[in-house]
């Protein structure tokens, strides 16, 4: 069997209490071995069918734990698909589930086509023949749905940027192919430097696109939010209230350094990644504990800043400074302790520093959280972010990202081939590969286009 191992998120992401990432295929165990560490210390590969282990999903590339999870192992043919299957059952949050999926993809799995698990189950004789037509409907509808999402996603800036990149690549490929296929026609030769420059430019643009995909924003990965404010204004209360309210605590994700962690919660369908909450909980003072520099850096990285102030004590220079330094960010200003007498008013704040940030007066001790949630959701929606099911967005996004990364890898190969002084027939492998990967996103047939473009651009023939 040459069936590639496929992976997909098996649960609706963001909404469900638990998230399942499922792998099926002959390399499923090998991949699990690389990305799961059992608590007991036994090897996932050695587990008998239908067994489960508690442990940690890790990212072997960065040596980091992604989440605590349960690993479920089924050995073919005794599995849903009839192949070797593993499932990672984790806390169902956008970031974690996606990270697990991406790790599996990097380890060699391929993103499953819509309905592919069901299809394999059927093809491997795990479903009753009488179910055939039901399966067809599933395949059909899921494919149409995901196509709709893909097309939907492509309208807009991503599509435009990919098209621009593709055009540059096409220009190069078409020249290469015209030279190769029509050696007797006077088609200008390509210089190595010229080719290298085009390839490098395209790689650069792909990198920027991949980086954008990584930032992902809002629906895709969650809005990176920071709760900030001077000590004892109620930041940890706010965090705990948000978490209680949403009952959606997913997990702790250790950040790049041990001093930051993220928590993901779902605010009316908008995934929020709260940064540095560990800091808040432990010392209740980010600035004090990490220093001003780090705090400023965190603000810079944030998509959304929730600035908490205490209305019952006089304004401090710290409050003003935070307000001034976060002027150009998406912000919600929370004036806490509305159950106590107010000692300052909004007029006391610098109007320019406050800008258009919504201000919510609230008592985190006894009041409702609704006005704050309204403000956050209002702010995010105004920013052009609309609600959609996160799971669909993630699936298509993971595909796009994989395709972009593969296109980049192909171009890097082409560049290496070029620098080694190897001939056009080898260089073209990477160039065409890259075009085909980009074509996967836009759904076009590259080969025919190349031939059409050769005749459109060059006066060929006798």
């Amino acid at each position, binding site marked *: 069997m040459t069936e590639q191992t496929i992976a997909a998120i098996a649960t609706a992401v963001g909404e469900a209490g638990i998230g399942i990432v499922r792998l099926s295929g002959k390399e499923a165990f090998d991949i699990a071995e690389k990305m799961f560490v059992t608590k007991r210390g036994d090897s996932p590969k050695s587990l008998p069918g239908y067994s489960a282990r508690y442990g940690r999903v890790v990212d072997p590339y960065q040596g980091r734990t992604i989440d605590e999870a349960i690993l479920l192992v089924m050995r073919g043919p005794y599995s849903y698909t009839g192949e070797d299957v593993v499932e990672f059952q984790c806390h169902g949050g956008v970031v974690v589930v996606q990270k697990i999926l991406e790790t599996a993809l990097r380890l060699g799995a391929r993103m499953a086509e819509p309905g592919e698990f069901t299809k394999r189950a059927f093809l491997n004789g795990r479903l009753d023949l009488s179910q055939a037509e039901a399966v067809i409907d599933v395949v059909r509808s899921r494919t149409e749905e995901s196509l709709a999402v893909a097309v939907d996603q492509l309208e807009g800036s991503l599509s435009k940027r990919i098209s621009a990149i593709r055009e540059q690549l096409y220009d190069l490929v078409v020249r290469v192919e015209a030279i190769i296929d029509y050696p*007797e026609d006077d088609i200008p030769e390509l210089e190595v430097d010229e080719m290298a420059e085009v390839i490098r430019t395209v790689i650069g643009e792909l990198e920027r696109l991949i980086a954008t995909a990584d930032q992902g924003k809002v629906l895709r990965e969650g809005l990176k939010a920071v709760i900030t404010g001077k000590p004892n204004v109620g930041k940890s209360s706010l965090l705990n209230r948000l978490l209680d309210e949403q009952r959606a605590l997913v997990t702790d994700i250790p950040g790049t350094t041990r001093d930051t962690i993220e928590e993901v919660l779902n605010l009316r369908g908008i995934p929020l990644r709260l940064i540095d909450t560990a800091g808040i909980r432990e010392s209740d003072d980010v600035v004090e504990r990490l220093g001003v520099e780090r705090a400023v850096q965190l603000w810079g990285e944030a998509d959304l800043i929730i600035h908490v102030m205490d209305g019952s004590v006089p304004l401090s220079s710290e409050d003003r400074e935070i307000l001034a330094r976060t002027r150009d960010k998406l912000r919600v200003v929370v004036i806490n302790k509305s159950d106590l007498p107010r000692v300052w008013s909004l007029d006391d704040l610098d109007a320019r520093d406050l800008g258009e940030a919504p201000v919510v007066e609230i008592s985190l001790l006894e009041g409702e959280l609704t006005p704050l949630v309204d403000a956050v959701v209002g702010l995010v929606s105004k920013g052009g972010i609309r609600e959609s099911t996160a799971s669909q967005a993630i699936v298509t996004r993971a595909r796009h990202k994989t395709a972009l990364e593969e296109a980049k890898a192909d171009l890097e190969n082409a560049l290496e081939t070029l620098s080694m002084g190897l001939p056009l027939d080898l260089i073209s492998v990477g160039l065409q590969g890259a075009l085909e990967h980009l074509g996967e996103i836009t759904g076009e047939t590259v080969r025919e286009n190349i031939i059409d473009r050769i005749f459109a651009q060059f006066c060929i023939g*006798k």
Partner: protein
Amino acid sequence: MSKNYDVIVVGAGHAGCEAAYAAAKLGCRTLLLTINLSTIALMPCNPAIGGPAAKSHLVREIDALGGLMGRIIDNSFLNIRLLNESRGPAVRALRAQADKVLYQSLMTQALESAPNLDVRQGIVTEILVEDGAVQGVKTKHGVEFTAPAVILATGTFLRGVLVVGQLRYPGGRAGEPGVNELSENLESLGIELSRFQSATPPRLHADSVDYEKLTEQPGSPVPLRFSFDSDHDDRPQIPCWYTRTTPKTIEVIRDNLHHSPIQSGSVVGEGPRFCPSIDRKVMRFPDKLDHQVFLEPEGRYTKELYCLGLTTAMPEYVQEEIVRSIPGLEHAKIMRPGYAVEYDYIPPSQMTLSLESRVVSGLFTAGQINGTSGYEEAAAQGIIAGINAAHKVLGKEPVILRRSEAYIGVLVDDLVTKGTTEPYRMMTSRAEYRLLLRVDNADLRLRPLGYKLGLVGEEQFARFNDKRRLINETINWLNVTRVNPTAEVRAKLQELGSGDLKKSVSLADLLQRPELSFADLKFFADCPELPGEVIEQVEISVKYAGYVERQLRQVAEFQRLEDVKIPDNIDYMKIHGLRTEARERLTAVRPVNLGQAARISGVSPADISVLAVVLKDVDKYVSA
């Protein structure tokens, strides 16, 4: 004389010759019928074999399978050159200028002396069919020949019309009649026909050309051959000549565009984009003033020069003006004027991958009748049609080459699966696995099949086996022989302009360095004396290993879908999960496996998923 045959081939062009030879070689009593015995294997257009990359790949593949074209051009070329040498082994190409008269003679001789093969003059006007199956053919003179398999290789003769300027008159080629009756007969059998057109440039008298103003294009000083079986000789090569159009040429053409058949509409049907007339080139690329013109000898014993680059069907006086506007051709005399030909072809989605009609059982087609262009493309289809017609008669499975196995496979699959909107020409860009389908390894890819079929003889195959064994042994030896980083080795590497060596490596590792060749290895080990073709294979195998392995993995993935067969009697209309467009396209093309289905335009990945599911329970979906 018996009028009963196993296989009848209609037409003795490049497709018909290969088809008849292959069928006869496979043991079938074969009849080759042609309108004119004097025009067997005629090159009515460019007197050359190979040229644009992929054409030489086709010739090598035909040769590897045991066909004729490679051997005959090797014995009849006036000059031969290697193209794309610096662009990599996968796209290297040969181009041979043919002595077209000698080519015809040698082909005629090969066919006339082939066992099981009768060559006979006759104009076929009717295919005899009973109950949807071929019974034989009938000629204009009323003679009937019977056979359970008929191969049509009629070129441009079906309802052929010749066009010069505004003038249109019936003809298959200049000086030869077209055939209308067969077109009518095919239509009455339920076969759909469509129109294509093609054109050819004027021929000039060699003594009327001023060679002082031309650039000589000599043949290769290095011996080159198409066929894996040809020996090298040192026959003197006759050069081609090169010149360019001038602004005056463009002016003449612009002033006379209203006479151009493509402009005036006196020619209908789609022409090939890769072979545009000079009129079309001027219209489409108005800024380009100096188009290339090559003057190519047509034979050792004729003064005719082919004018490559000046294809046109303008009125003759305009052709004269065009020719005389070109440096070196100021006083050139036209011997044959250029003209266009318009003809019927059978849109190829009406046939199966074995080149058999899906409308009439036992009717095979090859060459221009299938909508292709080019001698090599025609010959490639010819050998496949010949094999499959014979196999049909002999009750054997059809031979279908995979896209990952041969350009011939790409060619046939493209025609059947995608159809074509212009005369189809093979290009390396059409192949997914170009690094595997190299011109140098056609024998490694296809000779074993040719031998198994019975087209390749014992002696040929023994020679091939020796070569293959030597290649494998040498690669093995390169992998196991170590080179240590001694001072001597490191100094030699430096001298060769190669990087330093830190630890012991295999000879193969060294050979992978782009700057080192097999010949350089003699400095590091006792290299065996090897034939050049073995060294070539070894070098390519080692140097390209990484790239080739990657394509092989892609092929394995690709093959998964190819291996899922679709029964011929599946009824797509019964599969409600398919979109309407997909049902119609699938019904029209009738793919034999899932991979082919996936290549049909209008069939989406979702449709393929649905099909994959259905195929598990296919009995529900077949028609009775």
